[in-house]
């Protein structure tokens, strides 16, 4: 797959009112482990107060990028700026960052209070200042009753709160999170996610957050950077990533179940695949195109039953699999020999083998060039 970074979008993507100064800037970053090139010529600008999520599958280099920004890895080439200062060769502690790790990385022999104050003591801050910062952070994170405990006597969620507190007391501009919620169970993860979002709204620092969890990314992020093989595939708001994926990889990666993809040809303003033909008059082409293409439509953009009458294309399919999720139900059908997922209301009673009338329009769809896999 080609390099499909879409820097062009970034500039007009930010609404004019909230156009802020750049907080973290990564320029032409290369990182190699021996002969293995993990990050390739990576460019990224993060605005002040922004919550940026690095999202990608395992091994794509998210943690590596975060560690480069933190200064924990020596970069092979390129430059890193934080608050306009070139920090490429500075120690992590001098960069004005705080970091939170997946494994919490608390100092096990120290109390919660000790964990939060050790770095400050080491930096030679006056006692009154230290206790002020620690009590402020513990108040924000609601860990005051735990201050005298050791990490072993805390639950996972409490430990991660302490770890966040340890970053918070540093009073820095940029916070880095490396999958901070991955070790928690689903319920706790959802709770802490909301708390993180509130924390960001309250302290308004720049935050860079690594995850491979789409839900976390979509809910927390101001912008998401989707990475694959050390290259940023798309950098945009969650909404844009979802509705206008920049390439086939992003389209397939985001959304559960994934976007339905049909392989066919664009010709004379119509997309044609085996047994399907969609008029493309409603589709917003980046530039005129004819030739082999992928047609992608999200399950929730497929109308069912009478609602399908308003769509450009109407078909009848047979339900092969029915997955009730409670709030809604996923139905798998087959279209043009491909699996085709539909999302319908949890109330509707669909059984395997039922014939369903469906419809969809090009307005909601995404088209990708088959050779370059870039959005059309």
């Amino acid at each position: 797959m080609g390099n499909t970074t879409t820097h062009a979008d970034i500039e007009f993507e930010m609404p004019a009112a909230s156009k802020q100064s750049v907080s973290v800037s990564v320029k032409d970053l290369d990182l190699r482990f021996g002969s293995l090139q993990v990050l390739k010529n990576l460019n990224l600008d993060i605005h002040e107060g922004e919550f940026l999520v690095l999202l990608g599958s395992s091994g794509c280099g998210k943690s590596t990028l975060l560690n480069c920004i933190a200064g924990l890895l020596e970069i092979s080439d390129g430059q890193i700026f934080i608050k306009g200062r070139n920090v490429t060769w500075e120690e992590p502690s001098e960069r004005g960052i705080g970091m939170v790790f997946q494994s919490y990385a608390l100092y096990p022999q120290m109390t919660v209070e000790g964990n939060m104050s050790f770095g400050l003591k080491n930096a030679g801050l006056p006692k009154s200042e230290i206790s002020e910062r620690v009590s402020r952070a513990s108040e924000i994170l609601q860990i005051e009753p735990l201050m005298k405990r050791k990490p072993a006597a805390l639950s996972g969620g409490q430990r991660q709160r302490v770890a966040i507190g340890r970053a918070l007391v540093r009073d820095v501009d940029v916070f880095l999170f490396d999958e901070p919620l991955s070790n928690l169970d689903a319920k706790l993860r959802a709770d802490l996610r909301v708390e993180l979002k509130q924390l960001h709204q309250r302290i308004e620092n720049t935050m860079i957050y690594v995850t491979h969890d789409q839900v976390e990314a979509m809910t927390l992020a101001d912008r998401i950077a989707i990475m694959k093989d050390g290259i940023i595939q798309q950098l945009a708001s969650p909404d844009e990533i979802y509705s206008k994926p920049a390439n086939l990889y992003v389209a397939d990666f985001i959304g559960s179940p994934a976007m339905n993809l049909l392989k066919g040809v664009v010709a004379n303003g119509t997309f044609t695949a085996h047994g399907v033909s969609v008029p493309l008059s409603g589709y917003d082409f980046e530039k005129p195109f004819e030739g082999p293409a992928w047609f992608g439509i999200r399950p929730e953009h497929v109308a069912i039953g009478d609602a399908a009458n308003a769509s450009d294309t109407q078909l009848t399919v047979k339900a092969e699999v029915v997955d009730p999720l409670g709030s809604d139900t996923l139905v798998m059908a087959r279209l043009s020999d491909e699996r085709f997922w539909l999302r319908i209301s949890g109330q509707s009673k669909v059984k395997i083998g039922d014939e369903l009338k469906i419809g969809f329009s090009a307005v909601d769809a995404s088209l990708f060039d088959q050779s370059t896999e870039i959005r059309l």
Partner: protein
Amino acid sequence: MAVTDAGPATEVAKRPSRLFKNLASKIAAVPMVLVALVIFVGCTIWTIYHSFTRSRLLPAPEKWVGLDNYERLWGENRWLISIENLAIYGFCSLTLSLTIGFVLAALLDRKIRFENTIRTIILYPFALSFVVTGLAWQWILNPQLGLQNVVRSWGWESFAFDPLNNAEIVIFGILIAGIWQGSGFVMVLLLAGMRGIDEDIWKASRVEGIPAWKTYIFIVIPMMRPVFVTAIVIIASGIIKVYDLVVAQTSGGPGIASEVPAKYVIEKMFFSQNLGLGFAASTMMLLSVLVVLIPWAYLEFGGKKNG
């Protein structure tokens, strides 16, 4: 309620007796328990009992003499020197091999190149027996063959380094060999412990700007406490047993300047045919171990029982 982890033959619906739970492993442990009871405890009691008798070549349980052997022991210059030597050797050997071993481990832990090679070289001494180590260092410290000769041949004619023939410092000559052997072992043990420490702990401390030495002292060493305890126990037991190193290097000389308790015990028992005195000496050694061990075990395990 069916309990399924009670072994294969007990597919019954009632709770099996606790005695038969894990029966196979209990049976397997019996020989070990017997060995521990009969050999360790039994022989210890036997030894202590006979230390109050006038046993010569053979144990003579009927010749009870009370504390005579102990009085004689503590009146003997050779025993006093042995104890003093053990104290010096033990203290220096423990602190130095722990310090050197830790520093070496910390250096290797910093991901230097050729780690495997260096580790092997440093660990080699531990693979050798004390006798070989002792002989090797006897040569190295021998004025005609070893270090002194080499330095003199470089042109420093007045250089004198002959610890093994100087009664004042002979124990330090033995100490060198002991540390050479011990610190490699400590290093490997501590290195394994250090490698077990989460990489993220190091990252966190770097982000907080805590210097590496402080991270080692305040974070890593406290986390490695169990490894340190293991290392100390192994080294300490080696120190108390030190015998072959002395025999190979100095045979206790010059005079009786490098005698150690273990050597005293063995010679009293097998060469001077004075079992009673030998047993009294070994009882004293056991006592000194217990004096150290009991408070430690109390601190280590006593507190946690209540928790």
